């Protein structure tokens, strides 16, 4: 085991996969000489050359299209969104071509492509740099969406995403890059379509992902003090959702809280809530509760920004209210 920072785990994943398969290459803004906005690709260009760690002009829609064309013809590109929000400028290429082209072409082409980078609400970065793209992209057929949350799962998931033959949107979080964890020195991969059972419990199922996993973990001690033991599930795969894991937990606890960083309207929690209603209605002892970001552009002001995103005390009070009748 070696203590590894989150961004180092991501770099190791890319490095190992580039060494393993010469068709794998990275492209994006400042991924080469500069080493990436969060240093995930630092010095990789020295090892692999400038074509394999390709600094692109600031032209998101077109370099994404270029990566799609390269993937269609046999390469395995990894796009780094300098900030994932910038990829709204590539929405057309991601949706129409990465997502739908395999289907539209009747299976003529496959698109092994990873689109990864920092997203989520950081520290007073302003609205445009605080995007959570998962809600926008969850309706696109053909895309897989994965959100990593620890150095351990970041590495194993990214390696699996690079080996996957589909386009994978791979979400990292700006505030997690310096998280530390002991991770195995030997190679490992993690499945892209499996949720992670973070903590077993029986009183309520908390479904979360990305940075909100850590807010949930911060809420746990107080909940435990109050005698409430939630089952915490990190969704990992935002599309497709791991309904086996979600269902098993709901059948056990009969209560669900979704804690997410995307906005409430049309978010991941909205999809989960509808899915639980359709599949597990009779299992529920209470309506599904969604704790989401407020439906506003993320404000710059620190106080307002904190109010926008779900905080641990809010998780505690919501869970207590929901489970209260049961305890």
């Amino acid at each position: 085991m070696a203590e590894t920072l989150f961004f180092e785990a991501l770099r190791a994943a890319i490095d190992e996969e580039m060494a393993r398969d010469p068709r794998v290459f990275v492209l994006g803004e400042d991924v080469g000489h500069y080493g990436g906005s969060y240093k995930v690709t630092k010095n990789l260009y020295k090892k692999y050359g400038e074509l394999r760690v390709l600094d692109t002009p600031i032209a998101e829609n077109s370099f994404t299209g270029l990566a799609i064309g390269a993937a269609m013809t046999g390469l395995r590109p990894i796009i780094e969104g300098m900030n994932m929000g910038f990829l709204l400028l590539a929405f057309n290429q991601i949706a129409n071509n990465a997502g739908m082209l395999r289907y539209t072409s009747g299976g003529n082409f496959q698109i092994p492509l990873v689109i990864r980078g920092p997203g989520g609400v950081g520290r007073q970065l302003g609205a445009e740099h605080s995007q959570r793209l998962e809600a926008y992209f969850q309706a696109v057929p053909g895309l897989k969406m994965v959100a990593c949350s620890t150095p351990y799962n970041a590495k194993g998931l990214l390696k699996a995403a690079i080996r996957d033959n589909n386009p994978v949107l791979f979400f990292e979080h700006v505030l997690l890059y310096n998280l530390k964890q002991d991770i195995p020195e030997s190679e490992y991969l993690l499945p892209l379509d499996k949720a992670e059972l973070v903590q077993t419990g029986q009183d309520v199922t908390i479904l979360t992902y990305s940075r909100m996993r850590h807010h949930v973990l911060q809420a746990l001690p107080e909940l435990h003090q109050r005698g409430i033991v939630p089952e915490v599930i990190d969704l990992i795969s935002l599309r497709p959702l791991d309904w086996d894991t979600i269902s098993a937990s709901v059948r056990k606890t009969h209560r669900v809280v979704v804690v997410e960083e995307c906005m409430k309207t049309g978010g991941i929690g909205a999809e989960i809530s509808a899915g639980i209603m359709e599949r597990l209605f009779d299992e529920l002892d209470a309506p599904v509760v969604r704790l989401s970001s407020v439906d506003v552009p993320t404000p710059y002001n620190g106080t307002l920004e904190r109010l926008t995103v779900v905080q641990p005390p809010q998780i505690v009070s919501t869970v207590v209210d929901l489970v209260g009748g049961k305890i």
Partner: protein
Amino acid sequence: MVQERPVPVFSPTAAPVSREEGLALYEDMVLGRTFEDKCAEMYYRGKMFGFVHLYNGQEAVASGVIRGALRPGVDYVCSTYRDHVHALSAGVPAREVMAELFGKVTGCSKGRGGSMHLFSAAHRLLGGYAFVAEGIPVAAGAAFQTKYRREVLGDQTADEVTACFFGDGACNNGQFFETLNMAALWKLPIIFVVENNKWAIGMAHERATADPHIYKKASVFNMVGVEVDGMDVLAVRAVAREAVARARAGEGPTLIEALTYRFRGHSLADPDELRSKEEKEFWLSRDPIKRLGSYLLEQDLATHQDLKAIDQRVKQVVEDAVAFAEQSPEPDPSELRRYVFAED
């Protein structure tokens, strides 16, 4: 009288064509024209649906570039929503294209794509792209792949050139400029072929762009830009050959502006009310198929019987394509979800 932009003068002696090549180009253009006329007929008979954009009048561009300068099936071709004839020139069988338009499972996109989404990996057709300009960066990606295979993977056989077709309307879109920049910056083996047919649906080219000379837009990327008479297949073939040679030699991309015209409306749903009768007549008088036919006869490269035989043969091919499409099965409803992911 319509003031038309003067086309550059081309002397066929500059790039002589053999009888065999001349007849092959002629046949390819006749196939494109006959196929499209049949599409109109089938559309009005309710055999195909959606937006169907025909290529009549522009045949010299597809044939001159793909048949005249590329190696179909080896080099990559990227098209737009007006893609039937690019697909045919790239070697996709007429049967597969017609069956796709009929929505049949035997179509080149298994009935999932339709008129604007023709694909064939086997023929290196990267696709019909239905949104204007979105195919341009994808084509550059295929070209990047060729460069990557050669320079990173050490594959000395990697010498494909990608031909990327699009219209005048696309040349005001960011993806056009962004991709030209990257292609020139990295010297990608690609040729950008603008089919300037003067109209983006109802938007006249000169109403949409500050400088109507599209080929000049290459200069700001230190790229070679050339204009060519898009109604003269031999002229198109000549400039395309130079561009392909440049690309293959690692000297980077070329922007070719082919001055051409569509003889029909934007799509079969377009009432075509804005283009003047004079303008249409002017361009109809420059029909690229008649022009090549006359040239081949003048030069004693072909006889009337040769051309007639081609017309007959192509007619059979298109009739056969229709019969094949008619008789082909629909996609299996149980396979509605197939092809969403790579494993399907």
